[in-house]
């Protein structure tokens, strides 16, 4: 399985751009990690339910009611760019 790891393409999926040096370093290091985790194939998991988390809780609901939280000003207080009470981003459509 690990031979198929394509670092450059996976980085693209994660919205990351790597230098040549990073790409080749990660290719080696992550291939080592993936060949290490191959050992999980030894385990017989037939009929075993997956564990997503260890809490006993299932669905947790609250009343759908308005409550006090950030003001727009507070929500924008760390924005790299803002205008008219909105986050400013670059063009989405060319």
């Amino acid at each position: 399985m690990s031979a198929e790891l394509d670092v450059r393409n996976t980085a693209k999926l994660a919205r990351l751009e790597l230098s040549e040096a990073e790409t080749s370093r990660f290719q080696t290091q992550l291939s080592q990690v993936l060949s290490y985790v191959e050992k999980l194939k030894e385990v017989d998991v037939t009929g075993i339910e997956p564990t997503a988390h260890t809490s006993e809780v299932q669905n947790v609901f609250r009343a759908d009611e308005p409550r006090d939280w950030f003001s727009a000003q507070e929500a924008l207080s760390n924005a790299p760019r803002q205008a008219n009470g909105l986050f400013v981003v670059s063009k989405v459509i060319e």
Partner: protein
Amino acid sequence: MERPALHSLSLSALQSALRAGEFTALEALDSLEARIASVDPQVGGYLSRNLEKARAEAASADVSLPLGGVPIAIKDVINVRGEPCTAASQILQGYTATYDASVIRKLRAAGAIPFGRLNMDEFAMGSSTENSSLQTTSNPWALERIPGGSSGGSAAVVAADTAFASLGSDTGGSIRQPAALCGCVGLKPSYGRVSRFGLIAFASSLDQIGPFTKTVEDSARLLNVLSGKDPQDSTSLDLPAEDYTRLLGRDLKGLKLGMPKEYFIEGIDPQVDAAVRAAVRQCESLGAEIVQVSLPHTEYAVAVYYIIATAEASANLARFDGVRYGRRAADVKNLQDLYVRSRSEGFGEEVKRRIILGTYVLSSGYYDAYYLRAQKVRTLIRRDFERAFEGVDALICPTSPEVAFKRGERSNDPLKMYLADIFTIAANLAGNCGISVPCGFAQVDGARLPVGLQLLGKSFDEARLLQIAHAYEQSTPWHKERPTL
């Protein structure tokens, strides 16, 4: 007898002195700040402190409250309103928290003063604090060595007497391992015991916030304040309130401690092995019955962890996109470019490595082979613990297979760094509680380096875990030792 210096007091001793009127909360804070100013330049635990704000809070402290007037230092991954919260990452440079994490709200309600931001591995990814993008933190016992990680700052400041206590977070051992390597007490509560609201998420099914302290009693007292159901964290559990100090002072008669045979293996530093085995004998002499147990899936825990933790991290860290907060790259061409460049410039190497691994194990075609299989083996690891705890009250083992290593020794070998977590990560996968307490020293290259004893308890059995840790601690001299700085 000579009076101990104020900064060297335990949290409990500080409180008694404050309540007796021996000095004021403001005097305690100023004395702590003087100690930080003299020692922290060597240790590098603190990233920042807001002394003016803390002094104002100390001046009006109500020392009758459970933690009244006590300064508590905070890992830079927990939000404190009005203060930086960077997770030691460039991507959060300039970020100011707009709210208090639930644990901070609880500390404040108990009268404590959140004081100081502590260094860590970037986004809590690492075991040595070398992955901080901001500064180097040293082990107070040997300054050329690492303090452990990821909560390296949290451990180093308690060991250096530059904090009475601190908060950290533990995803795979990030509280217990640095506590062991710095010679203080580190508690990872059971998953669901403490609210994660306001903790910058790394791996949401594994993360827990917990205290670093000088004594086990202090740990219990902090847990009294930190624990409890929080409507803002749906995984925090609604359990009856309890006093975690209630069993402290009892001996170990009638209790059974299990030695997992998979945790006493070849490859452990012989001095660590010897110290831990001596600690086991000490517990026996205090009345505990020692039995051998087995956790048969131990050898798979690291593999399961590095799939699940990176998968969850790749999703959690998707929020850092340069739009709403944090670093935004300059001169971008379009929105896609803004995301890619902001993330690529903002994240450090280990974070990128883990995001890529996590993205890969979740990607179409590999999900079943890696992520789903890891989740199933996680079930088997949980069952190992459930079965072991049917016959024993707690497990006893090393926290880390080694003592603090020298900076730079591991930097180029991520897999070797990951394998150092073998004794701590299973507790996060299984959700149970664990604590590290000092159990001796190893002599390495002329340095005297702390060794940690790990006790693992059943989920939500912290009171029992603390009782055992306390009985051991009080019968040994290790917790009284301090580094020379």
